[in-house]
């Protein structure tokens, strides 16, 4: 800190910050570019209605990605989130609408189920991949039990929320997504529990030496994932107007891609709420873009996958350069 210090060029930025925020910024740039391209091809999306239209299918994905982000911050991966969100839509479109009290209890029980899953992972040293893969079939089964065929109806208050058109022309989906992201970000960065989650992912020994319990921390993290999964399920119910346990099995892998795009790591320790939001929106908008480009819907997943791989490879190169 002495005056004689020959200050390196980036001295104003804390060490390691650039490396961590770069992926998020790159993804943000990609998101903006895709938006601009879409907007040029179809100017109608620049209205409250148009924006709501392209964004509302992405809300559940964004919040589901938040859940995956929390999971990856502790160094685990959730292979069950797709079916979990599906199960929640099945519960919401039946129990929650018909018998709200039992519905709420069922939702709380699913969060508890996640916490128990965390206990299993911690106590029996079951890899999270295996535990959540197994759990995905449980969610599928329970969802089919609640609603064997797609159908049911979203609770009226949920539908009312989606029909709400906020003042100042702000699209509802944006409000939902930004709010969910802001709360997740605050939780992960500003609270003791959030720091514990990230410490668990980065160095469990440090967490234990600080006097916290690994079991408690992991169960809490899984419960948080479950809670975010429930919120994602509710927004999806509102979007599709009913329930379907098989609605979004693809979310399981798409949410992982969103977290990675946003700067998260498989090895844990990083919580990147805003990056994950940008990642989820980018992935969601790709579908819109490819449709506008009149690409055959059969080819869309392949093109999407190709773009994701390209971005990840690019990020790796950038990451190495900075380090």
């Amino acid at each position, binding site marked *: 800190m002495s005056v004689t210090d020959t200050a390196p060029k980036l001295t104003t930025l804390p*060490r*390691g910050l650039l490396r961590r925020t770069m992926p998020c910024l790159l993804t943000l740039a990609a998101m903006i570019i895709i938006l601009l391209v879409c907007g040029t091809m179809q100017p109608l999306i620049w209205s409250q209605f148009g924006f709501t239209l392209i964004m509302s299918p992405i809300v559940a994905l964004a919040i589901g990605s938040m859940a995956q982000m929390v999971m990856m911050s502790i160094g685990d991966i959730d292979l069950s989130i797709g079916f979990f969100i599906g199960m929640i839509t099945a519960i919401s479109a039946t129990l929650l609408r018909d018998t709200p009290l039992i519905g709420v209890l069922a939702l709380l029980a699913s969060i508890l189920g996640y916490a128990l899953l965390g206990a299993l992972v911690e106590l029996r040293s079951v890899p999270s991949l295996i535990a959540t893969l197994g759990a995905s079939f449980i969610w599928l089964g329970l969802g089919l039990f609640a609603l064997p065929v797609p159908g049911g109806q979203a609770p009226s208050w949920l539908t009312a929320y989606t029909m709400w058109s906020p003042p100042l022309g702000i699209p509802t989906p944006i409000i939902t997504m930004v709010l969910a992201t802001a709360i997740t970000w605050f939780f992960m960065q500003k609270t003791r529990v959030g720091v*514990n989650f*990230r410490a668990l992912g*980065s160095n469990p020994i440090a967490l*234990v030496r600080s006097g916290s319990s690994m079991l408690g921390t992991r169960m809490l993290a899984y419960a948080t994932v479950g809670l975010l999964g429930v919120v994602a399920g509710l927004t999806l119910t509102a979007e599709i107007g009913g329930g379907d346990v098989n609605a979004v099995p693809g979310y399981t892998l798409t949410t992982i891609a969103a977290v990675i795009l946003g700067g998260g790591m498989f090895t*844990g320790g990083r919580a990147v709420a805003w990056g994950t939001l940008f990642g989820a929106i980018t992935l969601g908008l790709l579908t819109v873009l490819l449709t506008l480009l009149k690409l055959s819907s059969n080819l869309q997943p392949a093109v999407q996958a190709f773009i994701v791989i390209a971005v990840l490879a690019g990020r790796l190169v950038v990451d190495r350069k900075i380090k």
Partner: protein
Amino acid sequence: MTSEDMGPLMRVRDVIKTYGPTVALSGVTLDVRSGEVLGIVGHNGAGKSTLMRTLCGIERPSSGTLEIEGRTSTEKGSYRGVRMAYQEGSLAPELTVKENIYLSANQWMPKWRWHGPAAKIAKERLKEIFPDNSIRASDYVDDLPLADRQMVEISRATITDDLRLLILDEPTESLSGSAVDHLYDYVRKLRAQKLGIVLVSHRLKEILSVCDRVAVMKDGAVVSTHLASDVTERDLFMAMGGEVAVAETGVGSGGADRDASRPVAVQIPMKDISGADTEIYASKGEVIGLAGIAGQGQEDVLARLWNGVAGEVTVDAKRAYVPGDRQRSGIFPLWNVASNLSITALSDLAERGLRQTDKEDALVKKWVNLLNVRGGAQAAITGLSGGNQQKVIVARAFASDADTILLDDPFRGVDIHTKSELYQLIRDEARAGRTIVWYSSENSEMRHCDRAYVLRAGRVAAALHGAEITDERIIAMSFAESKGSVA
């Protein structure tokens, strides 16, 4: 003895710690007083790290008592008022400096809006201990150099409201000269505030200059306690079981008496303790040892030989490596003894890419019989005792057609009977023309070597030959610090 009037801050009585059949602490009795710096020294396996972990409460003693200011129970896995600065591994690298501080000291910080206070105290404490550090509170630990991380770790340990006893485990191994001085200034300041400090270090000079008393550990017990002002480094060597070696013995004599009749099989350029160029070499058919305190660059030498970059080191093209940590890098747990044993030799036995099972069987049979592996070739490897597993791993290397065998402390925790069989095997194989480079943390094993190099901080502190290779000399040379520092 000074300050006998005050009761000790921490009272340790007859503490025994065992892990299964292994005795890590065999009955430690020790007092730490307030207002003193207690140094703890000892060679590999003396039990220092186990004792430190026991002192701060991570490990519970198997028997015996620990008492700090009258309390005997731990809270959340540590004794109240006791903090330890670990040598490594207790910071979360993906978190920032202030988040790490918050993680370890959150009970003394506000529940909300703690970023500011955590950053402030981190910065203040870092500045207080290391005035010319350039660490910022929002730097990520992962992106800090090793020395800075150590500074953060030391500061982290001191940030608490009720510090009574501070344990520093090898705090200066990665710090530079001025930072070391600053740290010890701070330690003296804490002593003046009537705190107790325990300092573990291999740097005897530092120990003698900072500590009031020095406890010497050997074989899991404190063998003697000295007033630092009354002893010299030489006395400490003696207490640790070393002998006073004449400083010039062997140092730099690496290439002097090379046997010209035998070709050089292994050669690796090194620095000696004063920074001059030297080398570690082995002629064909020799057993050479790498000795010294664990973690002083021995494994680095093995890694350089294993990688065998041409132009940097000379080593046979065919070489085999015997890892020390058999659980992690040694065995294939799902395979049986025969498959585990023959894996390295497979490709040499194969013809046109097809396995020759008859040759494999013969090879396995030969080695299983030679080393007397319990259970035979078809036994599951995980069903074997540790010693027998290690036999299989050693046999795997020798069953290959490698000319040079690298041993990475492979006999830790192996029973004495198995060990003597393996030592014999090593001698026989060397006689048959193989070159063996052998790192061991157990000094007595080095007796089986033709030549042993004692390493200190990645440099060659001494090269001992034949009868010179004794526990005492190795211990004495292990603590060499710079030219002529011994004696």
